[in-house]
């Protein structure tokens, strides 16, 4: 399956906030109420369409436990997008966002798009974190925000796709260096054929900088 762009995502956040369930809902469109703890990192992928272009999303779902934190850090640099997830029924997961965000900002490329997600919006009765608080946090730190439910699938598609839209927009604005794969973005084989002039000229640029 050919694609115009490939984006790498990571999903981060405290343990038990529903990261793996979000991924499963997005890739397989199903919900698994009982899920094993993620060990290290798990991989998932799906194709989406933005602006009429096929975009492949490769998603690494990380373990939320403290003991895996150092492993998770290895994934920040190569990711174009991150979904930072908390659980709206557990305030502590919201309180830990700052730590996660610091970690992400420290180890990622500065252009990484971060989407803040308040998951489990189906559990309105047990809500512990107001939507406004999430919105305020996102505003304060320049993130996109959304409340989702991996169980009912509410906003799950949107969360992944809106992140991709933001990355796509950044590419259009020339913020991302799409020829550097370390950014977590890759141009599809078919797409690079349509822009041979562009890729060759930038390749030349790279060479000259290598000489210096």
């Amino acid at each position, binding site marked *: 399956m050919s694609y115009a762009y490939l984006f*790498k995502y990571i999903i981060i956040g405290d343990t038990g906030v529903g990261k793996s369930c979000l991924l499963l809902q997005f890739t397989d469109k199903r919900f698994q109420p009982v899920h094993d703890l993620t060990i290290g*990192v798990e991989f*998932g*992928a799906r194709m989406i369409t933005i602006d009429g272009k096929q975009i492949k999303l490769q998603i690494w779902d990380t373990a939320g436990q403290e003991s895996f934190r150092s*492993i998770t850090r*290895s*994934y920040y640099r190569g990711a174009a997008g991150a979904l930072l997830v908390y659980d709206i029924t557990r305030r502590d997961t919201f309180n830990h966002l700052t730590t996660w965000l610091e970690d992400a900002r420290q180890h990622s490329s500065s252009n990484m798009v971060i989407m803040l997600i308040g998951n489990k919006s189906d559990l309105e009765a047990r809500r512990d974190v107001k939507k406004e608080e999430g919105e305020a946090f996102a505003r304060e730190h320049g993130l996109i925000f959304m409340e989702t439910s991996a169980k009912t699938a509410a906003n799950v598609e949107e969360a992944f796709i809106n992140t991709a839209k933001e990355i796509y927009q950044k590419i259009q604005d020339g913020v991302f260096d799409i020829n550097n794969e370390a950014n977590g973005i890759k141009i599809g084989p078919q797409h690079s054929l349509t822009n041979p002039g562009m890729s060759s000229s930038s390749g030349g640029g790279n060479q000259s900088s290598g000489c210096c």
Partner: protein
Amino acid sequence: MELVSLLSRMSFYLPIRHRQSCTRVAVLPSSDFFISTVERLCDRVQSSTLLEDRRDAVRALKSLSKKYCLEVGSQAMEILISVLQTDRNDTEIVGYAVETLTNVMCNEPYEEEDEPPRALPEDLGIQFTEMFIKDPENISLLLSLLEEYDFHVRWPTVKLITTLLINKGKAIQEIILTSPMGVSKMMDLLSDSREIIRNDGLLLLIQLTRSNTNIQKIVAFENAFERLLDIIAEEGNSNGGIVVEDCLLLLLNLLKNNSSNQNFFKEGSFINRLPAYFELEPADQSPQGGWSAQKVTNIHLMLQLVRTLVSPNGPQQQTMACQKAVFQCGLLEKLCNILMASGVPADVLTETINTVSEVIRGNQGNQEYFASVLAPSNPPRPAIVVLLMSMVNEKQPFVLRCAVLYCFESFLYKNELGQSQIISTLLPTTAEVNTITAGQLLCGGLFSSDPLSTWFAAVALMHAVFDNAKQKEQLLRVQLATSLGNPPVSLLQQCSNILAQGAKLQTRVGLLMLLSEWLSNCPAAVNHFLSNNANIPFLISQVSASEGDEMELIVQSLCAFLLGICILYNSEQVEGFAKHDLRNIIEKRIGLEQFTDKLLQVSKHEAYSRAAKKPQLNIQQTSDILFDHQFTKLFKQLENEVIRAISPGSDEENEAEKKKQVALEQHESIVEQYKGIIREQDSQLNIVRGELSELQNKHKECNTKVEELGRQIQQLKDQNALLKAQRTGSIPVSSPKENGISVTQLTMDLDAKTLQVKENEQEIEKLKAELTKALGTASSHDHGQVNAMVNDSSSPNMSGDQFSVEDLNRKLECKEEEVKLYKNKYESMSKQLVQLREQMTSGDLQEDKHSLTQRVSELEFNLTAAEIEKKRAVDNEICAQDKLKAVIEEKAALEEKVKKFEKDMAELEIELEEVKASATEGKKDQEDLLILLAEHESKLKTYRDRLKELGEKVEDDLDDDDDDLDGDDDED
């Protein structure tokens, strides 16, 4: 501290070294000299202030480090580490230091021709490695050295890290995992333009990724697959050198037992790049060409790569997905081409067959494709037939024959269609005479003199009927023509006959496995088997035999199993061999204990557990071949049932068994019922869930409506406020009641005024009449002419006496006063009107407004109550909805009221307009009156003038009036 512990370790080795040096003292007088040199060099590195001195010293240490690794390692390690930190800027000294450390830690024995190697502890390198990594910072230090582009630093660093990983892989992997950029720094080595660094980087990564799933995943995340596949392609795929081999080894490390990476590999469409590896060039296919050893190695690894992706031991879903991808990208086709090509080395061919097996195993689409593959023979034959020919050919290599069996099994695994296709080639109706079929080959193999061929054919046939009752019955129809003149014999009987003739071990084991599978779950086959009187006695004799070696024991055990199956699937149709008959025979002739003991021999055998592990035959020698994987499954499934079936079995107990069976069935039916109930409940639950979500949606809607209503109320409030503001502003607004009162007052006033005006007019009339009278008297005085018409403009002759004129004047004055009075009244009325207006402005609408506000707040209260109730319980939905309706109605009522109110206001405004109009009318009347008065005045003047003309004296005070009425005079 570190040094102290080092030295304490040293003391452990010292005796060895002393013994060595003592024995060799005559030959090697210089050994001690070098040892003391190491000390002096260490001193120099530590104390010298000149970089060049230090550099020379480190270089010297390096040259000694291979031969005297123990001494250099124990004395110089700390010093060398500090060199790496302090002299970081000098690439040369750093390079020497890193190389020295590598020499110390790698376990390569130092060899020199004139000198036998010193006996050093084997794990010396490992121990030095342990010392080195005691401080994890040292690993970080090395990782930072990797960033140094200079060849003299980067290359030895790569080698040192590789050495460390070889010695203490697990510990170093853990340290690297805690360093966020560690793995990516090592991955960057693959992009180094200097090939030697890239290649050694590969070796480093192979060590790094050994059995550590987390590191494997990070390496994959860092685009390893793409980089490696690119390098393989650049190097010429399978024709490439050892670099291709290293790349493949790394790929295998990343993929083996790592389903996340396998999924990534598949999702990244990297499988699409594999077909190119199996492209055969013409040179590869010529018989004399011969493949290079490197190419054979590369292809082997490439095949392993494919097998890793479609491994039958992996998660089934993923295996299926990969199998599909392998087919779709044409890789299966390429592999089948190799199967049918000539000139392919036997071991490559064997491994390709194994690979194809796993690509098609259990995947219907791939199995169908495989069945359609034709060999390029003349005439073309199906690939399956060609492969089976090799399987039953004793001249073919053993491993190849095993691979073909595996391929055949995989083709039939979960493939009913394939099974029926194979069996049908055995049946008389479709068997063609001229072509070789699979069935013919299998039959030929079954009765071959080569025990292995029999074993292979028997197992293959067993897979053709495995778990397929229909094909088992079909197979019963197969008849064999043995020799001329003799009647044909059934395939089943022929198998039993060979068994009874006491063939070779593997032949018997193969046939017994085939018969066990064939008879299990197939009463027709059991009947057929029992109908030959010789079969049961043979089995009994085998099971009851007491002598025999280990292998004979296996055969006896399998015979017991077959006997058990004959009881288990007995339909009681063969006289003398019904269940209880067989049970009796076993009890009398063998004894239950011995039977059970014999039966369990199979599962105790080592070959059994080996075969149970995985589908592919895991056998190196022909003599080891014994059990098939699927057969072990069958045995496991039935052994307990067999034991139960023969256990103390009188008929009563059989009855009891039956009862139990019935009870069990009942139980099962109850369970079934419960299952049904559960299913029902499940569906109900689903419905309820659906309803719940619907209700939740409705609730959501309601909430939005409530919000909307809240907004509308706000709007209404705003409007209200606006109205209030307007009321206090310029536009006069009044409440209907108050307004009504004031209007009636106004109307009353007006009425009164009109009345007064009428009175006034009447009085004017009276005045006119009097005037006429006066005129009449005047004229009668003068000319006797009286003009009766007051309004007549023709000048009447004025004549009268002064008296009456004076009287007239008085009356006129009186009139004038009255007019003034009217004027005043009018003014006061106007004032009243203004007052009224003011009253209206300051209006007492407030009461109504207040009630309105109250109602609004009441409404708000209701709304909040409704909201609270909504929140409280979702199942109060309907109640809430009712309330909502009420709210909506109230809202409508409110809106209506507001409308009414607006209408009232409009009406009021109209009334006001009317009042104003009537007021202006009153004013007009007044004006008319004034005009009338003025006319009278002018007439009076003319009369007066007339009187003057007539010579009457007129009082002066009237002159003022004259002046006042001048304008009127002019008009006249």
